[in-house]
C-alpha cells in the first residue's frame, strides 16, 4: 500500500533513525575554493559540523617539481586523500615578526625614571623636623640644644602651621585623582616619552582613504599616495575570501607634512569612477585631544 510506505518515511521517523548515524562528509569545489564539510560526535555526544575552506591555487613550477607533485603518498600518509590532511597539517594563527629596533630606546626611558627616583630618594625623603637637614630628627646634632627645645616649646603652634603647608603642596597630587598626563612634574614627561616611542607616533601621521573602488590593489594605493612623500606603512582593507578591496585603507606617512599634503590633495580627488574621501585616521583625532 502506497499510503503505508509514505507514513514510514515521515520526517519524524527519519530524525529518529538518524540519531546514531552521522551524515556523510561532503566536498564541494566552486570558484577556486574547496569546501570540506564533515560531521562528528563531539564531547557530550552532540553532533558537530566542521567546515574547512581551502583556497585552490595554480602555480607554474619547473618540471621536476611538477613531477614530484604527482607522486603517490607513502608510509603513514598512504591513505591520505589529495590535499593536506587536517590531522597532520594545521593552519596556524597569525603571527607577526616583531621588529626590535626601538628596544634600546625603551630600556633607556625606564632607566631614566629609575635614576630620577633614586636621586629623589636621597634628597627628599629624610628631613629633620628641628633643623630641616637631611637626617632623622632623632639623629639631629641640635637635638639637645636650645634650638630643639625652642621648637618643641612652641611646637604645638608651629606644627599645625607646618602641616597645612606641606599638606597643601601634596593635596594637589594626592586628594584628587589626576590622570598621568595631567600631572605637573616628571610623570607627564615620562608618559610623553613612552607615547612618542610607541606605536602612537605612527597613528599621528596615519590617514584614512575611503570610497575606493572594489578593484583597488595595494600597488594602486601605493601609487596614489607615493607622490606625497615616503610611506611608512600601508594597509588596504580586503575581503577575506575574494581579496577584493573593501573600499578603504590606511596610509602611515613618515612625515606629518606629507600626510597634510596628501589629505589636501586627495580629498575629493576622482579615482577610478569614485570620488575619494581622505581624512586623518580616527584613533589619531581621539588621542590628540
Amino acid at each position, binding site marked *: 500500500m502506497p499510503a503505508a510506505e509514505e507514513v514510514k518515511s515521515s520526517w519524524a521517523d527519519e530524525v529518529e533513525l538518524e540519531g546514531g548515524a552521522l551524515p556523510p562528509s561532503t566536498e564541494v569545489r566552486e570558484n577556486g575554493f574547496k569546501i570540506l564539510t564533515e560531521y562528528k560526535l563531539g564531547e557530550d555526544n552532540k553532533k558537530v559540523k566542521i567546515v574547512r575552506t581551502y583556497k585552490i591555487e595554480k602555480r607554474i*613550477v619547473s618540471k621536476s617539481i611538477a613531477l614530484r607533485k604527482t607522486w603517490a603518498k607513502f608510509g603513514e600518509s598512504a591513505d591520505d586523500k589529495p590535499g593536506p590532511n587536517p590531522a*597532520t597539517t*594545521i593552519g*596556524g594563527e597569525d*603571527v607577526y*615578526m*616583531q621588529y*626590535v629596533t626601538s628596544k634600546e630606546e625603551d630600556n633607556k626611558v625606564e632607566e631614566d625614571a629609575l635614576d630620577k627616583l633614586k636621586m629623589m630618594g636621597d634628597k627628599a625623603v629624610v628631613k629633620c623636623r628641628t633643623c630641616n637637614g637631611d637626617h632623622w630628627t632623632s639623629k639631629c646634632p641640635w637635638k639637645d640644644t636650645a634650638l630643639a627645645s625652642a621648637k618643641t616649646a612652641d611646637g604645638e603652634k608651629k606644627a599645625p602651621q607646618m602641616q597645612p603647608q606641606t599638606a597643601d603642596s601634596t593635596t594637589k597630587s594626592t586628594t584628587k585623582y589626576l590622570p598621568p598626563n595631567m600631572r605637573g612634574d616628571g610623570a607627564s614627561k615620562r608618559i610623553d616619552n613612552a607615547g612618542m616611542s610607541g606605536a602612537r607616533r605612527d597613528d599621528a601621521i596615519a590617514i584614512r582613504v575611503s570610497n575606493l573602488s572594489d578593484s583597488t590593489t595595494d600597488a594602486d594605493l601605493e601609487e596614489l599616495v607615493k607622490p606625497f612623500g615616503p610611506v611608512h606603512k600601508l594597509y588596504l582593507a580586503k575581503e577575506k575570501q575574494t581579496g577584493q578591496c573593501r573600499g578603504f585603507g590606511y596610509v602611515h606617512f613618515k612625515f606629518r607634512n606629507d600626510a597634510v599634503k596628501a589629505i589636501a590633495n586627495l580629498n575629493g580627488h576622482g579615482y577610478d569612477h569614485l570620488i575619494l574621501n581622505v581624512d586623518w585616521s580616527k584613533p589619531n583625532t581621539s588621542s590628540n585631544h
Partner: protein
Amino acid sequence: MKPLILHGHERAITQIKYNREGDLLFSSSKDTIPNVWYSLNGERLGTFNGHQGAVWCIDIDWTTTRFLSGAGDNSLKLWDVETGTTIGTISTNSPVRACNFSYSANMAVFATDKSMGHQCEIHIIDVRNADESLGKSSPILRIPINGPRVSSLIWGALDETLLTGHEDGEIMQWDLQTGKKISNIKEHDKVIMDMQMSKDATMFITASKDHTAKLFDSDNLMLLKTYKTERPVNSAAVSPILEHVVLGGGQDAMDVTTTSARIGKFDSRFFHLAFEEEFGRVKGHFGPINSVAFHPDGKSYSSGGEDGYVRVHNFDQSYFEYGFDY
C-alpha cells in the same frame, strides 16, 4: 604571516631540511619516523618507516631522489624519496649523530657517537650505486676522532674538504684526499649544535650552546661575525637572498623550571648578517627550537622545535621592505 603547523611527529624535532628546489621539506624527530612534506601547502607526502631509535640527522641529495637518515639505533639508512622504501642500511657501533651527502651526492659522510666503548668515527661512503649491499661495502675513508665527539658536520666547497663541529666547540677542517686534518679553530666554548652553509658555500654559520652563533669563512675558517643571544642556540641559517641570519634556540627543556622565565625565549630571532644586530623575532613554539631552515628562494622559513611541531612561515611583504637603520 599565517604559519602552517606540521604535526606529524610525536616527539621533539631533531632536524628539518628543504630539498634543493625547496618544494619538499624533510623533518626528523626523536620518534623513529622521518617525514616529508610539500612545503607549499603543508601536505604530508609520506613517512620513512624503518628506524628503531631517535633519528638524529637527515639529508637529501641534490636531485631529490635519495634521502639519508642516521639514528640512535646504530644505523644509517638510505631511502628512495619517491616511494619511501629503504635502499640500504649501514649498521654502526654507536648512534649516528650527523650525516650529509656531498654536493654531487656521489659520496656521503656520517659521524658516530662516542659511546659503549666505541670511539667517535667519521665514515665517508660511496653512494653512487647504492643497493642492499651498502651495509657490507667498506667505507672509502674512516677518520677516528680521539678527542671530543663530532656533533655536526658539513662538506666544504667542491666536496674537497670536510668541516666538523665538535662537542667542545672546536671546528676542524679535513682533507679528503689524505684524511688528515688541515686546520682547526676553537671559537666556541660549548658544543656546536648545527652548521649550515650559505647559499654560495663561501661562508658557514655555526650554532652553539655557548649562546652564540658564528659566521666563518668556509675556506680558511676565519671568524667573520658573531651573533650573541642570552640563550643556547640550537640552529642557525643564512638567508639565500637577503643579508639576514635566523637563529633558533632557547632554554633546554630540563632547565626551564630552574631558571627565571622571560618572554621571548622560544622565538626565532633574525639578525642582520653584517651588523650582528637583532632586528626581528617570530613567536610560536612553546619549547626550544631545535632546527631552522630557509626555503631556497628565501621567501619562507621553517622551524622545528622541542614541542614536536614544524612551523612553516611565509614572510610578509613587510619583511622584504624592512630597511635596516644605519
